């Protein structure tokens, strides 16, 4: 029988994988996917806490996070397409012209 601790460990592991993905990967789409993993790691901890505490608040907030994630994915992918059309590249290091 998995306990709260198991869920939280899994959530932490997923969050670390997502964070590492954001830093390590050189492809904008993969980075977006990594961000989704991070968000879902957080979602997991929310529902785990909700169940452990017998409250629906955790589940409600997950719906909000999913909505925001969907919107973020839509906007993010649109920007990625725009960038790709502009530079023929998906490597974030090619988009550094917005600096001092």
């Amino acid at each position: 029988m998995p306990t709260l601790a198991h869920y939280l460990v899994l959530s932490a592991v997923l969050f670390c994988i997502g964070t590492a993905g954001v830093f390590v990967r050189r492809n904008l789409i993969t980075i977006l996917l990594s961000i989704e993993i991070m968000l879902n790691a957080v979602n997991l901890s929310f529902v785990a806490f909700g169940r452990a505490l017998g409250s629906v608040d955790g589940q409600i907030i997950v719906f909000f996070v999913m909505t925001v994630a969907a919107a973020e994915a839509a906007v993010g992918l649109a920007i990625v397409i725009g960038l790709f059309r502009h530079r023929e590249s998906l490597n974030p290091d090619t988009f550094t012209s917005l600096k001092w």
Partner: protein
Amino acid sequence: MLLLIPLLPLVGFVLNASFGRRLTKTAAAVIACGAMLVSFAISVAGVAQLVARGPESRFIAQRVFTWITSGDFSVGLTLRLDPLSSVMILVITGIGLLIHVYSTAYMHEETDAEYARYFSYLNLFAAFMLVLVLGANFLVMFVGWEGVGLCSYLLIGFWYQKQSASDAGKKAFIVNRIGDWGFILGVLLTFVRFGSLDFQDVARSAAGLSPETAFGTMSVITLLLFVGAAGKSAQIPLYVWLPDAMEGPTPVSALIHAATMVTAGVYMIGRNAVLFSHAPLTLTIVAIIGTATALMAGTIGLVQNDIKRVLAYSTVSQLGYMFLAMGVGAYASGIFHLYTHAFFKALLFLGSGAVIHALAGEQDMRKMGGLRKELPVTYWTFVVGAVAIAGIPPFAGFFSKDEILYRTYASGHIVLWVVGVLTALLTATYMFRLVFMTFHGDRAPEAHTEPRAEVSHHANHLHDAPPAMAVALIVLAIGSVAAGWVGIGGRFEHFLEPSFGATAAEAVEGGPETTLMIVSVVVALAGIGIAAYFFLVNRRAADRAALQLSGVHRLLSNKYYVDEVYDAAIVQPIHIVSEDGLWKGVDVGVIDRAVNGVAAAVAGGGDVLRRLQTGSVRAYAASIFLGGVLILGYFLWM
């Protein structure tokens, strides 16, 4: 009804100032003169109403609105007509009207717009001067006081394209500011001491106190007020602006710098007679300053060659007489001299204006002479004015000046009386020196070459005063003869008594009045005789005397070097402190450097910090992550 008296000239000012550019000269003149005429008529009606009442209830007050209310302090825009202000409003509107009429001819060579501007200033001046004398409390008086100062500045600098005229305007304004500083401090102290600014309330409170023998609050108040009076009425040490004020048009000199505005200081002391009577120390100072000014200005007037400057120093000298009268407690005599002086000094200024007008701007008396045949009206009216100021009976100046000298003698100030008589001698001498140099003898040849080209036809046959000017001259000449008669038998003094309170009305013990009168007349005749000998009979003797006393002559010609001393002692130090200290030191060194330093620090900091903006998305993500970890760490472990 009282409100209309100052309001009408104000309306005239607004009309001429707003639409002056589009008005013809006739329209502008009709507006300005009409406003003064109606104002004069209302003044006469008001004074008639006042005279009809009993001496006890001789004041008419009108509270237009409540101006300032703060706690138990309340000041209304209140006008009050009493015997003292009734004398003043008649002088201001009456002589003001004549000078307006005179100006219509004198200023006729100006363009339409300038002409309207001139009359708008003149109307504005009349409005403020009437507010000054009708104001029932210190604050309303102060409004008029500042207003006439402004108009004086505007009119002295009327020909502002001329550097000397605009400088003279600034000088008048700045010197007056020093006096105003004293005046407003005196007003504040009056309020602190008496809790009211209304003249009647203050006089009533002060009357209940015993006169100060030592230097107390009332002495300080009166002394501060006297500083204000000295600034406005050109007394030592603040008289320096008045001779320079002659840069303005001559009718302005007649109205503002002879007949009305410069007498505001005398009026103000008269208005606060009860207060001054309770501060004998201040009164002594007033008398001494007045006498010293009278003598000093008289001696300077003796050697000046500019016709208007002689009259300017004569004005300063006569104002000194008025302050002498105030200082010995003869308030009514001072106001009486103010009133007669307004007639003959306005006449003399307007006469000199007619001469200057005929000679197309020439003011140097050495280039004049022999004008009596060509300018008969001007000549005869001028002689009347000169006789009046010299103090020959039955002309106006005799009555008032003799009265002042008599009251000075009777009050026991023998030294001041001697100086006063000496000044009377000087007055007669410099005035007839002016008459003889201008109207008698032969014209110096260069007078013909001096006039401007477009009016060179003037040089051959000079035109006497045109009708508008002649009317003003003749009316004023009649006034200069007859104005003194109202004072015979002390009627004038008696009329003014309610304004000065009981303290000023003390009876003068009998004195050698007739003897003193004869002395005055003999002195005046002697002065005329001296002038006649040196400048009519034996002109060379005058030059020889000037040569023999060249040191004295140089001292007097340079006006005792007072302007130079002020320049070295006050103007230059202020200049140096302002330029080297405040400008180059404080402003450039401290303020500018602080402002620029802050800007440079911000720019330098920005230069360093902008390196953080790498443009790399991953670097930003890393810093966000790091920040999140730090905040989380802080909450978990701290």
